[in-house]
Every structure is written in C-alpha cells, then in structure tokens.
C-alpha cells in the first residue's frame, strides 16, 4: 500500500500524533481530566474498530457487541474478586471467554441474514446482560467493584495513569494494525468478497459462513480485550455496560467515523464521546442533538467523517 498525502491521511496522522502526545500535554498543564477522558475514548475506539471489522468489512450488522465488553470486563472482575489478580491470567481468560462466546453466538446467528441477524445478536447480548444481572455473588445488578487493577508484575503498572494510557493506546494501534493486515490478507479479501456477493463467492468455491464465523470470532476477541481494558479503567464492572444501548452506541461510533474505513472508528469514537461530553455539560438531553446529527450523517455522508474527508481530495 502506497502512502498518499491526502486530507484523510493527514487527519489520521494528526489524530495519531495527538493521541501519542496527549499525556505530555496533560502533564504540562496538570489537566488530568483530559487524560482520563481520552483513555476511555481509546478503549471504546478499540471496541468500535473491532465492530467495524465485521460491520464494515464483513457486512455483519452485530447489534450485540457490548456483550464482549461485558465478558472481557467480568473475566477481569470475577478473577480479581476470587483473588486471582495476575493480568497474565485475567487477560487471556477475557480473550478466550470472548472468543468462545463469539463462536457459539456466531455459529447460531450466522444462519440468518439481515434484520434477523441484527435481532438475534441483540437477543443473545440481552441474554448475557440478564445472566450478569443474575450473578448475585458478583454484585448482580449493582455490579462489582474491582479493588485492584490487573497485576503484570514489574512489567507495567496499570494504576499509573500515563502507563495505563499508553497501554490502551498500544492496544488500539496494535488492534488497528492487526485489522489492516487481516483485511488485505487472503482471508480478508474473501470476507469482503462475501459481503459484496455471497452467491458468487459460493459458486467459486468458498464456504461463506465458515469465513464469516472466523471473522466474527476475531472481532469478538478484540472487543473482549477492550472489555478487559475498560474494567481496569473504571475499576468497576456492571451489567449496565453490556446493555443494548451500549451496543447501539458502538454502532453509531462506527457509522460516524465511516464503516469499512480502517481508522474511521477511531475518528467516530472521538467525535461521539467528545460531543457527548460537551453536550452533557449544557443539557442532560444531549441525545436530542446527537440523534439528528446521526440522521444527517446517514442521509448525506454515507462514508461518515472519513468519507467526508475523502471528498476533499476529489475537490
């Protein structure tokens, strides 16, 4: 892939540089709030990027992606609660649990298409939500406080704001790099081909659902990682974090940024969460403004913000 200088690449480079330098700014100005805010944004950007892999590239509209945030988070929370504080155990468990959940849900959901797929992924995520609500040992509806963040020995201290920020940023950049490799690989081309014309791909010899399922599992696993990060960030995990509105927010972030654009979900998440932060300072009805904005983007800018930036190049 040749690197071209165009509006969207410049914006992406600026955003990436901004994210890298943010802790410096925070230290110089003593503004801790912005560091906390952006840690949260980065974690959600990772979740949105994982959703974009199946939504944007795979054509699978999953309306239950928040479930992975919850599963990854609960893996960390429950293990911490049971006295297993090592991140080397917590995080792999979070990833494996998310992958297994994705495997089961995917195998069942991928028998359906379109609206039914959306509905069935939503239904499973709500099931996960109610199961979490029912786990009375782990706080049930009230959630579970995590008293100690994942312990990675002397490697990294998650309680240190700056270290944790860079860990999250590393995960985000790593995740996006991974997705970039995937979408240009043999596997990625097949998945995108299936989105484009499933019948054709079957006719030339591809078992479409097998590829879809693997893509679904990869996406869920990456989102599980975001869940583990999120639990560490908030020191708390509750069923509310996997409610269907959260899944909807993730979809909105992807659509804002631009479906099927590699860096789009990052831009979309920054846009969404900053706007939410800003608007909620003026009114608690911030969704009243967010809603019409989403409508405008869907109506007039199908490619989201990245799509708009792309238009500048063509003049």
């Amino acid at each position: 892939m040749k690197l071209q200088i165009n509006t969207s690449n410049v914006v992406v480079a600026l955003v990436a540089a901004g994210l890298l330098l943010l802790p410096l700014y925070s230290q110089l100005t003593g503004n801790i709030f912005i560091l906390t805010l952006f840690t949260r944004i980065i974690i959600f950007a990772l979740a949105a990027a994982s959703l974009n892999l199946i939504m944007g590239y795979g054509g699978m509209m999953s309306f239950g992606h928040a479930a992975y945030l919850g599963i990854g988070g609960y893996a960390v929370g429950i293990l911490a609660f049971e006295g297993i504080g090592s991140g080397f155990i917590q995080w792999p468990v979070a990833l494996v649990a998310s992958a297994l959940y994705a495997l089961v849900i995917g195998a069942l959901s991928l028998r359906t298409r379109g609206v039914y797929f959306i509905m069935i992924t939503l239904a499973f995520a709500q099931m996960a939500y109610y199961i979490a609500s029912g786990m009375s040992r782990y706080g049930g509806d009230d959630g579970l406080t995590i008293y100690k963040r994942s312990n990675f020995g002397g490697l990294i201290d998650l309680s240190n704001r700056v270290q944790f920020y860079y860990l999250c940023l590393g995960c985000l950049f790593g995740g996006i790099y991974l997705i970039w490799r995937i979408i240009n690989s043999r596997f990625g081309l097949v998945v995108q081909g299936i989105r484009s014309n499933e019948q054709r791909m079957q006719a030339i010899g591809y078992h479409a659902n097998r590829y879809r399922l693997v893509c679904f599992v990869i996406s869920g696993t990456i989102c599980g990682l975001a869940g583990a990060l999120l639990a560490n960030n908030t020191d708390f995990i509750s069923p509310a974090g996997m409610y269907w509105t959260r899944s909807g927010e993730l979809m909105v972030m992807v659509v804002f940024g631009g479906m099927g654009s590699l860096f789009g979900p990052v831009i979309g998440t920054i846009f969404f969460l900053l706007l939410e932060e800003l608007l909620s300072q003026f009114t608690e009805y911030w969704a009243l403004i967010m809603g019409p904005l989403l409508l405008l983007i869907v109506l007039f800018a199908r490619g989201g913000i990245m799509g708009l930036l792309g238009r500048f190049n063509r003049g």
Partner: protein
Amino acid sequence: MADPLLRVENLVRRFGGILATDNLSLDVIPGELHAIIGPNGAGKTTLISQLTGQLTPNSGTIVFGGRDVTGLPSYERSRLGLARSFQITSLLPNFTAADNVALAAQAHDGHSFRFWGNARKEKPLRDAAQAALTRVGLGARADVPVSELSHGEQRELELAVALATKPQLLLLDEPMAGLGVTESARMVALLKELRKEVTIVLVEHDMEAVFALADRITVLVYGRVIASGDPDAIRHNDEVKRAYLGDQHVVVAHG
C-alpha cells in the same frame, strides 16, 4: 462412447404447483460442447442452478465425474471442477477485474485462512488472474473496478472468473445475454477456443451461436427434454420445430 462427465437422472424440481424441472435426464460427454436451448420459462436457469448446487432438486440424481453430487453445496461442487457463469452478471462490483479473478484462483489454491500476508501481492495468484484475463481479452483492464467495466467486458470477466477455478465442466448461462453484434461475435470466437480445453454446457438464446458451436443440443420445454441430438438432427426434428423453433425456423435453416 466415453463415460459421461455429468449425468443427470430423473431430476425434478417444483416451485409450488409449477414443475420447473420435469423428470429430466441428461448426459454430458467429456470434451463436448453441449447446448441447452428452449423458450423462455423452459427451466434452463433452474436446471443450471441445480447442477451447480444453488438449488436443491426435489428428486433425482446428479453425478459429476463418477461422484454423486446431488446433496453437495455449491462451494464443494466448485472444488470438484464445476464452474458456472451467471445469466445476470454476478461479480464483486467494488473489486477490480484482477481481484475478482484472483479470488477465484485463490479458492482453488489451498485454503484461504491466511490472515497476515498481503494477498494482492501473491504473485502466483496475480499471474493466474492475469492469464485468465488475457485469455478472455481483458488483459489490459486488470486494474479497473468491475463497476467501471462495460457490460460486454463484465460478461467476459464472468468467463475469466469461471476459468480461474480450473474447471472440468463449464456451465455457461446465456453468456451472450445483452451483448451487441460485435461483442457476441467475439464471445463466439472465444468459446470456440475454450471448447478445445474444457467441456462446456451452454445455455443460450442466440440460435446462430448455438448452432455454430454445439456438438449436441438438448431442447427443453416446460422442464422436459423433448429432443436431444446433434445440431442437424435438432434442426430437422419435427417436434422441436413445432414446439419451439416456430418463427425462428428461418434463422435455423440458415445456421
């Protein structure tokens, strides 16, 4: 006579009360170009779809290369060497011509669960794609997105995609559909070349093309075979004349 490459026996397919395929039997011998003709609604595309596995027959068997494939899904039949082109062009519109063909080559080159390397830089796949594109006369259009290709070029690309799967049997569903006179002539010339390498089942409305190309012709009416034989026999078959050729009789007489 050699063992048939494809043997269809007593195939039946209903859509509600309509018998789209009515107890149909058919043999395709290796190396031949076997044309299937019939008026609109005779069940030609339905037959092709059952042969490739997009549709499941209600009863009957399909044997390909000595193996019963009646219950096999389309992707497994493709693996066995059965390729089709679609009557209504069915490609990946936002991919380039080369991508379309390379994906077909990739499907038959080991597995595709490779997540890391850049597939567009795999020389063997790209070379295979380029060869298939050149074969159908699209060599210079490799990097053009499908959505920007002309209709005629898309028809040729359909063929290149099918060829890239290295088929033993090529099922062509109206490859001439919607083509102009010159484009049709190019397609006929191309098929004349291809038939030397691969067995072809050709469904086509263009009678001139069919009689110029076919070794054998099977005539379908209402899902039934009413005649099967070499072009001469079909041309002089009274039932075919009555049931199907009718006003096209003149064209056939010239063919």
